C-alpha cells in the first residue's frame, strides 16, 4: 500500500515535470517566433524599382530635350501663360540600338493606342488649363498636338530615324528651347514585349558569378512569323557557362513568342540582344 502511494507520488511528480517541459517548449517556440518577427521588422528591404520596357510608340523618335536657354527659342512674350510644355508628358526613353542586330527592327504602328494617348493628353491638358482663358493657351495646345502627331508619323516609318523639335516655353522672361533626335527603331513595341517575356523567363542570379567582368552575351534569334524562335546564334559568349546556359534556357523557354506584327509577318526576322548580369540591353 505504501509502495503504491510512493509510486503514485512519483508519477504525479513526473507528470508535473512533463507539464513544465511542455510549457518550456511552448515558451521557446514563442520566443523563436518573437525573435524572428523582431528580426524581420528590423530588416530593411532594398527598394525595388520597376521599369517597364514598353513605352508609348514613337517615344524613341522624340528628341532629347535641351534646357539650354536662348537656342532657337521664339520670343518669350508669345506664350506667356504656358507653364508646362506638352511634350514633357511623353516618356523620355531612348534606348540604344543593339549592336549585333543584323536586321533593322520592325516598328509597329498602333494608331488606336496613339489616338487613345492623344485623347488622354487632351483631357489632362483641359484639366490643367486654368479656368480663365489665356489668349495663347489654345494655340500652344494645338501646336503641341501637332508636334506630337508629327513625331508619331515620323516614327511610323520602319527603321526610320525620328526627329523632334525642341520644346519651347517661357517662364517669365526666360525662354528655353532645344533640338533632339533619336532612333525610332529602339522604341519598337514588339521588341520591348519580347524582351519583357525573355526577362521573365530568365532565371539568373548575379550573385552566383564570381566577377562580372566581361560577362556579356551577344545573341541573336531568328523569329518566324508565328513567333517561334527558329534559331539562336551566340555572337559572343560570356566566360561563365552559367550565364550562357541561362540565356539559352530563357530563350528556349520563351518560344513561341508573340506572332510578328503584320508589317513584318511575311518573312522571318533576326533580333539581337545583349545579355549582361544586370539585364538585357
Amino acid at each position, binding site marked *: 500500500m505504501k509502495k503504491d502511494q510512493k509510486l503514485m507520488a*512519483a508519477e504525479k*511528480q*513526473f507528470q508535473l*515535470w*512533463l507539464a*513544465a*517541459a*511542455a510549457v*518550456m*517548449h511552448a515558451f521557446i517556440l514563442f520566443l*523563436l*517566433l518573437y525573435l*524572428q*518577427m523582431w*528580426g*524581420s521588422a528590423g530588416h530593411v528591404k532594398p527598394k525595388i524599382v520597376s521599369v517597364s520596357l514598353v513605352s508609348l510608340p514613337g517615344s524613341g523618335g522624340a528628341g532629347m530635350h535641351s534646357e539650354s536657354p536662348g537656342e532657337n527659342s521664339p520670343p518669350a512674350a508669345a506664350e506667356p501663360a504656358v507653364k508646362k510644355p506638352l511634350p514633357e508628358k511623353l516618356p523620355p526613353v531612348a534606348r540604344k540600338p543593339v549592336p549585333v542586330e543584323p536586321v533593322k527592327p520592325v516598328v509597329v504602328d498602333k494608331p488606336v493606342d496613339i489616338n487613345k494617348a492623344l485623347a488622354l493628353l487632351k483631357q489632362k491638358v483641359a484639366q490643367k488649363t486654368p479656368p480663365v482663358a489665356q489668349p495663347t493657351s489654345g494655340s500652344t495646345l494645338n501646336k503641341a498636338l501637332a508636334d506630337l502627331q508629327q513625331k508619331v508619323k515620323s516614327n511610323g516609318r520602319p527603321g526610320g530615324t525620328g526627329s523632334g523639335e525642341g520644346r519651347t516655353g517661357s517662364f517669365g522672361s526666360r525662354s528655353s528651347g532645344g533640338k533632339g533626335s533619336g532612333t525610332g527603331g529602339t522604341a519598337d513595341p514588339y521588341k520591348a514585349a519580347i524582351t519583357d517575356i525573355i526577362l521573365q523567363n530568365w*532565371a539568373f*542570379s548575379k550573385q*552566383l558569378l564570381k566577377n562580372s567582368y566581361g560577362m556579356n552575351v551577344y545573341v541573336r534569334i531568328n523569329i518566324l512569323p508565328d513567333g517561334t524562335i527558329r534559331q539562336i546564334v551566340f555572337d559572343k559568349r560570356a566566360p561563365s557557362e552559367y550565364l550562357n546556359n541561362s540565356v539559352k534556357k530563357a530563350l528556349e523557354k520563351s518560344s513561341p513568342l508573340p506572332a510578328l506584327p503584320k508589317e513584318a509577318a511575311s518573312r522571318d526576322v533576326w533580333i539581337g540582344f545583349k545579355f549582361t548580369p544586370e539585364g538585357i540591353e
Partner: protein
Amino acid sequence: MLDSKLGIFGLLSDAGAVVLMVLSLLLSFSIISWAIIAFKFGYLRKSLQESKAFLDYFFDVYNVDKAFTESERFRNGSLPRVFRSGYIEYRALGNKGDVTQARARIARAVKREVNAEYKRLSTLVPFLATVGNTAPFIGLFGTVWGIMNSFHNIGLTQSASLAAVAPGISEALIATAAGLAAAIPAVIAYNYFTQQINIIERDLEEFSPEFVAAFINEP
C-alpha cells in the same frame, strides 16, 4: 500570421504532412526527454546525498536500531531503503533459527531490495538512450522526405533555379535540426545519469554485506 516572412515558421506552414508528423514526433520526444531529465536529476541527486548522509551516520553509531530510526529521515536514499528492508527481515527472524540461516535470509532480503532499487533508479533512463539514438534518424527521414518532395516539385515546375530549390531543402533541413535538438540533451543526460546510477549501484553492492554483517554481529 505565419507567412513566408517569418523564417522557420513560414517554411513550416508550407511543409508537407510527413515532415509535420516527424516534427510533432520529435517535439513530443523532446518534451518527454526534458521531463525525464528534470525528474531523474532531482531523484538521483537526492538519493546520492541521502545515501552519503546515512552512511556517515551508520559508521558513526554502528548501531542497527539507532541507524534504523535515523533512516526514517532518509526516505529517498537508496542505501537507507536497503538497510530498512534488511532490518525488517532481521527483526522478523527474532531469536529463532541459527546464524547461517538468518544471514542467508537477511542477505536475500537485502539483495531483493537492491534489485528493486536498481530498477527504480534506472526507470525512464532508457527512453533517453532511445531518443538519443533514434531522433537524428527520424529527423533525417523527415529531411529525406522533404528533399524528395522538393525535387519532385522542381521536376514539375521545370525550373532548377535557386529560388525553386532552396525553400524545399531549407524546409526539409528543419527536421534534421529538430532531431539533433531532441537528441543532444538526451544523450548528455543519459551519460550523466548512467554514471550516477553506477555510483549508487556500486555503493549498494559494497555496503549491502556490511549491513548484513551489522545485523548478525549486533551486540
